[in-house]
């Protein structure tokens, strides 16, 4: 029996839009175990991205608590959150957010360098190899195709060996076979470094590769799947 690593308690996020209140998240209770691979699916606008942002400490919930790796996010200040993200979380966003000033290699090792550490060159090489980014190592983001940018973002999320990888449709720009390759890689690496993955996807095949599938509808979890121990 392994421990949970992510836990939310009646998590709510409301947006005020004029007179309307958009309930992006409306009371989410979620438990994710260590080393679990969870896929989140749901309709567009159902609140998947919002949930992921809350888990990564990028946004503040309207109500409720988020615990990650034993730490309560609402109790942290901005700096602690930044350091938390740098060390614990690897993000892959829906729209691939790379630092335009830095080339591919620099983008990938950026969180490591922010921590003042020397990147593990061999490991980075390996990831570049698998993600087919070897020859783009020195290219700047604005010269990359959409898929290449996404792969760079994935490489970055893996490099700092975070305990959790939060991926928001990481394969949206890739063709089917390439997407499957990337997810398989993600899974292998995660296994090796005992990482937890929470991945949002619209692709049913990809969702099937996960340990568990969570359905979200109108800001609520409607089906959390069955928790089972590892493989």
């Amino acid at each position, binding site marked *: 029996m392994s421990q949970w690593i992510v836990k939310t308690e009646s998590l709510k996020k409301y947006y005020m839009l004029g007179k309307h209140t958009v309930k992006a998240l409306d009371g989410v209770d979620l438990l994710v175990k260590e080393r679990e691979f969870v896929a989140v699916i749901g309709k567009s606008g159902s609140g998947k991205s919002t949930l992921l*942002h809350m888990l*990564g400490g*990028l*946004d*503040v919930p309207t109500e409720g608590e988020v615990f990650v790796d034993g730490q309560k996010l609402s109790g942290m200040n*901005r*700096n602690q959150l*930044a*350091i*938390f*993200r*740098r*060390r614990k*979380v690897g*993000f892959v*966003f829906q729209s691939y*957010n*790379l*630092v*335009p*000033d*830095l*080339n591919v*290699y*620099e983008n990938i090792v*950026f*969180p490591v*360098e*922010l*921590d003042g550490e020397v990147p593990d060159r061999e490991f980075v090489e390996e990831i570049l190899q698998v993600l087919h980014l070897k020859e783009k190592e*020195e*290219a*700047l983001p*604005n*010269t990359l195709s959409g898929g290449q940018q996404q792969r760079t973002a994935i490489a*970055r999320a893996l490099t700092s060996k975070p305990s959790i990888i939060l991926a928001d449709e990481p394969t949206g720009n890739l063709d089917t076979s390439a997407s499957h390759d990337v997810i398989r890689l993600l899974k292998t690496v995660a296994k090796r470094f005992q990482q937890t993955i929470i991945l949002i996807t619209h692709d049913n095949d990809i969702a099937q590769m996960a340990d568990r599938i969570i359905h979200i509808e109108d800001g609520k979890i409607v089906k959390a799947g069955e928790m089972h121990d590892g493989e």
Partner: protein
Amino acid sequence: MENNNKKIICRMAMRALRYNRRRSILLFAAVALSSFMIFSVFTIGSTYYKMTRLQNIRMNGADFDAVMYGGSEEQLEKCKTDEDVRAVGLVGVAGYIEETEGDKTANLGTVWADETFWNEMMSPARTSVEGTYPQEKEEVMVTRKALKTCGLEDRQIGDSFRAVYVDGKGQKKDMEFRICGIWDGYGDKNVFYISKALYDTCGYEFSSVVSGRCHIDFAKTFLTEKEQQEFQEKMKLDKQQALIFTEGMAASIPIYFGMIGIVMITCFCAYLLIYNIMYLSVAGDVRYYGLLQTVGMTKKQISTLMKRQMMILGSAGTLAGVLLGVAVSIGFIPVILGSLGINADKIGGVQISMHPLVFLLTALVAGCTVWIGSRKPVRMAVQISPVEAARYRASYGKKSRKKTGKGKIIWRMAKEQFLKDRKKTTVILLSLAAGLSVFLCMVTIIESQGARTIVSNYMDMDLVLYNDTLKKEDSDKWEKLMDDRFLGEIRHNGGIKQANPLYFARIDVPWEPEFSDQWMREFYEMWMYESYDHVRESYRSGTLEDNLFCIVGIDEDEFDYLTETLNTKVNRKKFFSGKTCLLYQNGLDIAESDLKGKRVTCTGYGDPDNRRTFEIAGLTGENYYMAASQSRMTIIVSADTLKEFLPDDQITISRIAVRYEREYDRQAEKEMMELVGKSPYAKDFSSTSKIEEKEMVEEAQGNLTEIGICIALILAFIGILNYMNTVTGNLQNRRVEFAVMESMGMTQGQIRGMLIIEGLFFAAGSLCIAATLGTGITWLIFQAVNYRNVPFAVPTGPVLLMTAAILLICTLIPLFVWNSIAKKGSVIERMRQTK
């Protein structure tokens, strides 16, 4: 169709201005500030020009550039036909009124002025004139003041009065005068103007330096030193004659150059700011301009659209700047001119000159700056192709870099950012450096001017007390204000370090062929209007009426100081034992080598039996030793020698130089003044005080410093505006990037650190430019205005202050801007914002 087009473009221009409010405000501020500067400088310049002219005219009492003492027919002819000369006005000194029926001791000069002088040269200095210039012998043109001096206050035009007139030969005539006119204005008003008819019979020759004053007005506004020299040579002056140029327009040439320099730097700063704002705005709005073309706007229309925006901003800014300039000018110009050497009180107030040309020139210069500054960005906007616009992604790096840099990531990123857009970086650096350089230049020159203007007392003493009665012609009126008891009281004061008296007595120097004959010849040629040959016989026989000799005694301190300034060595022992003496040169054309070793024999005044002979050991030109009135031959001996030579009652102290224990000791000065106040002759003392002098210099300079700093601040402000605008735009563009980095775990501290480093690069860069280019330019300007050979030194205090200020500004502004950006929402919200 055309018209409709124009309307639409105009509307779009207004909309664009309103939409980019921040940009519009900055551009407006830039134009307004610089046109304010340009307008102010032009107004100050033209007012200064007018006022220096007016001041010269009023102080001199007439409009002329040079005056020649005496003038032969030949010289006058040469003057009048010289092509550089615009006019020649003649004034002849014609004796004086000794007494009138109203006042027994009237003592008022009379002069004759020719038509040119009276009608042309004097009229700008006159405020009113009634009646006409005298024609008849008994007619006089007067002022109220002159009438008062003569005790004739109540007389009017047409009234007659009796007066004793002393003519050039010294003959007194009891005459009846008639007032034919009264004038008022500036210049010497204590004088009667007389007719040519009377002048011709007064016994004076115009060609003599005693009477003739030939006023020359040159066609040119400025005469260079060389031109003055040439003209002087052309006139072939004889020994007694002098040609004196009024300290006028030429002296202010450096000030005009300075003003032009300020206008140029202002324009340059404004240009940089306008260019940069427009450039940034075009670069950030490529999509917008591409879109305009996609929807069918022609390139010409786009260029018109932008030019229209600049025109609206430019004219509004110029107007605001000029209005501000008008307001400020009215308040401050008198103060500024005061510090440039215009004495408003003496010339009856400053009239601010706001010539239409000044407005026009300001508009022209500001307009040109706006036009030149926006030309390139407009061309850039026009050249954007619709396709490019669709693909365009901000101005992020164009080429891929080869190497991954070394060093800390934050340093690397900051450096990258600094070097990314070199043009922008250069513009910012230049505009910051311009402000810094002007500041550097101002403080350096003001500092050196400070050293220049302090003219201290002889021997750098704190206070010198003078016996003013010795200045009176009539030696019977000389009083013994200061004696050894008085000196003792001064020395007794605890705040006094030393007090050096100068003993003074009249003597006779009998004729002898070796020395005194030669000396007197030179003396007469230089100072007297009689020729020496005239009086030589009476001098020789000892019946010369005037007493022209005096002797002064100095103490050891003064001897040491005096001999330091001489070219030759003076034997101390011989001087103090009474064997040798020094002579005051008195402007005479005699070489020291001619006199050295010769002997001068003197006797007590009216006591030919008391005889003493000294060997001449040297000559001094130091006019501290100029005795009571100018026309005296002064022999300098030691105080003890003097006391031994003459009886006490013949010796007075002409001045006492006092040094305080502490320099600028106000308490000591107060006590000295009290001591003087206790004397029965308190009114007959005069003094020169180092404290007073210092205060005067400080007062004059205080203003100059403030104005200089104001100018530097306005320019620095433009530079800072430029920097602020760039930083704001830059951070706005990068805010998503920052959010992304934050999402990846960059802390606030790391972001701030990066911004500080970027700021430091700018500070260091602009300081480097200011330190090299700025110092170079400062040096050049310094050399151009450095008359006194003050060594070039950049003042450390202000420079340190400036360095600290620029470091703070460069690092605080980005932090400040960043804080306002970072406050806006959570990381994810900021990541969502795309431009």
